[in-house]
């Protein structure tokens, strides 16, 4: 009883000891904040990773793929049974996407994925990241009249009609000038000049050069020059389509590009975050990718951008480009005698299914020594990223606990001083018959109480900070003029923070343990004091 009473009185009257636990308080608050933010990042990232990707990826090791994905899906269905929710065949190839910007073809490296618009929705939440609301309901690769995100400004058919008609007008005008020039040349020279027409009408490249040479205020023009549409494999009818193709009414095969592929995020002078678009839904782009076979050649195919997606994962948004599976298979020559080829099957498991165990079952069915398949869970595919986040969290935790341990030494020093100050009282207690263990537990209880107060206040501070983390970040921005959370880097609008109660409990318990540990030595000293010497102490 006297132990509790005395440690309570010491707690209330020794403000210097309270000051010594401020570092504990701050340490606990920081630990809670860091853990919440890291957990927020990690969970948010997991969610986005898994939303974009299916649960299990069943990949062919080569680019040529494997035949008859339908049969494979049937077999997978047999192996996984009820755990399977959906499966779809895809073709994934590295590709170069070129778009016209300021009259020049600009190439970027992308990963091209051919998806089946009917079944792809069953394995991935890809749709919800699309910027067209109609596509979010039901995915297709047709350009829409409306429904695009307002951020994009003009997009879709209205945009395309303006662009294409400007291009057509421009092309007609150029044709007219050429004709006039030709006529003039004919009039001036009696002999037929072969250089003129050959130079201007021969192939794509000179036309591009001409286009690039003339400053065009109308900006990005779609490549609707009939001669440019010529090599398009997406129009199997070839020459007739070239004649029939009208950019204002027709589109090439649809393509869905990542938001970062299509845009650049930067700040203007006032520090506002702006996206400028390299191409929009409605523009035409050119894809260059290897064909299937033992000696691949480059295939050039035109596509019309019909939508963009924004998953928030910069890795995906800046590399992945989606096109219809059948179109890609045909363009790469992956259909032989009516048998389709695919490079991967994406598998979605039902909720609650054991991811690793299902993956293992598939690996048993398709052992690596007999089949050229790579079967991975999405966590394995994103292993390095997830491991990096995990390691960061661990290291931060260790560092912050070291800070609390340092604070523990502060408690130790303060406690020694308090024991020295209380020497006489300890002598009195002993002369009144208090056992050494009792004296010791006074100071241990005191240490525990200090730890409890410190970590309790720290916990409240930390939780409040987490609850108001975004207003606080904004306030800090205003005060310091420094951007705390840069949305151009993270692709999160706000700082994600998730408090894990178990972590909080562990942090608080660990801190209290450190506080008690720090008070052990002073308490032992107090317990060992000789009553007579303690009473004589001045």
């Amino acid at each position, binding site marked *: *009883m006297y132990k509790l009473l005395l440690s309570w009185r010491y707690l209330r009257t020794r403000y210097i000891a309270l000051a010594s636990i401020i570092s504990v308080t701050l340490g606990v608050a920081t630990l809670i904040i860091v853990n919440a933010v890291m957990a927020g990042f990690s969970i948010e990232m997991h969610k986005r990773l898994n939303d974009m990707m299916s649960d299990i990826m069943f990949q062919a090791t080569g680019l040529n793929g494997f035949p008859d994905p339908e049969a494979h899906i049937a077999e997978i269905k047999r192996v996984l049974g009820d755990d399977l929710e959906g499966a779809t065949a895809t073709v994934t190839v590295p590709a170069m996407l070129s778009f016209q910007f300021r009259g020049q073809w600009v190439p970027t490296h992308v990963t091209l994925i051919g998806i089946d618009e009917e079944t792809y929705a069953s394995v991935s939440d890809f749709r919800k990241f699309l910027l067209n609301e109609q596509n979010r309901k039901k995915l297709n690769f047709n350009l829409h009249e409306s429904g695009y995100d307002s951020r994009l400004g003009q997009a879709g058919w209205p945009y395309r009609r303006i662009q294409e008609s400007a291009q057509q007008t421009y092309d007609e005008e150029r044709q007219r000038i050429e004709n006039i020039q030709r006529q003039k040349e004919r009039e001036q020279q009696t002999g037929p000049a072969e250089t003129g027409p050959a130079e201007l009408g021969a192939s794509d490249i000179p036309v591009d050069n001409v286009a690039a040479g003339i400053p065009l205020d109308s900006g990005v023009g779609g490549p609707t020059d009939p001669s440019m549409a010529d090599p398009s494999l997406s129009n199997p009818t070839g020459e007739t389509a070239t004649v029939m193709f009208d950019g204002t009414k027709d589109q090439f095969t649809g393509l869905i590009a990542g938001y970062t592929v299509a845009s650049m995020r930067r700040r203007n002078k006032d520090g506002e975050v702006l996206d400028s678009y390299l191409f929009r839904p409605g523009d035409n782009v050119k894809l260059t990718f290897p064909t299937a076979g033992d000696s691949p050649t480059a295939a050039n195919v035109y596509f019309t951008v019909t939508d963009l997606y924004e998953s928030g994962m910069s890795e995906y948004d800046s590399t992945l480009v989606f096109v219809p599976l059948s179109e890609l298979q045909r363009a790469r020559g992956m259909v032989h005698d009516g048998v389709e080829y695919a490079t991967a099957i994406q598998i979605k498991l039902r909720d609650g299914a054991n991811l690793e165990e299902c993956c293992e079952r598939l690996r048993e069915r398709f052992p690596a020594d007999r089949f050229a398949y790579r079967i991975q869970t999405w966590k394995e595919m994103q292993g390095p990223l997830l491991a990096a986040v995990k390691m960061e969290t661990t290291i931060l935790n260790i560092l912050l606990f070291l800070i609390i341990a340092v604070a523990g030494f502060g408690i130790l020093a303060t406690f020694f001083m308090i024991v020295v100050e209380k020497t006489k009282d300890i002598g009195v207690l002993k002369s*009144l018959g208090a056992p050494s263990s009792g004296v010791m537990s006074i100071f241990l209880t005191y240490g525990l109480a200090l730890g409890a107060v410190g970590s309790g206040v720290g916990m409240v501070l930390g939780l409040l900070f987490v609850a108001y983390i975004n207003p606080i970040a904004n306030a800090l921005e205003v005060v310091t003029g420094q951007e705390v959370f840069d949305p151009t880097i993270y692709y999160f609008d706000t700082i994600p923070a998730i408090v894990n109660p178990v972590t909080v409990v562990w942090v608080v318990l660990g801190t209290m343990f450190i506080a008690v540990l720090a008070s052990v030595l002073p308490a032992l000293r107090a317990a060992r004091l000789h009553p007579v010497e303690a009473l004589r102490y001045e």
Partner: protein
Amino acid sequence: MNSSTSVRQASTESGIQKPHVSFPKEANQPTSQKPVKSEVVLQACGVTKNYFKNKIKIPVLRGIDLEVRSGEQLAIIGQSGSGKSTLLHLLGTLDNPGEGEIFFEGNRIDNLPNSARDVLRNKYFGLIFQFYHLLPELTTLENVVMPLMISDGIFKYWWQKKANIDRAKELLELVGLGHRWNHRPSELSGGEMQRAAIARSLITNPKLLLADEPTGNLDGKTGQEILEILRSLNEEQNLTIVMVTHDESIAADADRTIRLKDGLVEAA
């Protein structure tokens, strides 16, 4: 001679183990003045105590024999440095003697384990010091109840809390401090603090009160008041009191006086 046999008889009758040493000196000592108060409460036999400073032995007590009888007020007088405080600490089991033995009600106590000595100090001895030694964080009442808090577990204490507090208030009333039970020691005068200390030493109904210069830090009038309290306790409640002092006038008031000089009992 008569008295010593009666002592032995009394202790045998009460079933307490007799000290197994013979007391040849005891018979010679002038301790048989008051045959009425015969029972020996506390007894010291050949107690020595040395301090060491830089490995040089400094003898403080060089073989003290004394006995304290039930109900008497004994004064131990001596100059400062004569070892009287050390003797009181030894009697109160706060320290261990170098040689010799100490008996309480016939049982040897100087070789008891610490836990038993803690209980002894807590339940059977009341201690009063020159500098009062109240705990500054606690109120007067809490200081008085302290020995009970130490002896009782938390549940037992809560169970008897009201009785304990009533008892403490009663004692404070007895020493004339009833109205100031809620004050901190820093708000009390020296005399009031010593009254509180006396109340604290009485709360466990001790058999013996050990007072180390209880008036040493007080002016004459206040000291006299304290001595009156002690005297009335001795007379009304028949409380045995051992008081250490350097003041002859205080010692003269006691039933019996023992003089210490150079670590030895001076023959009266």
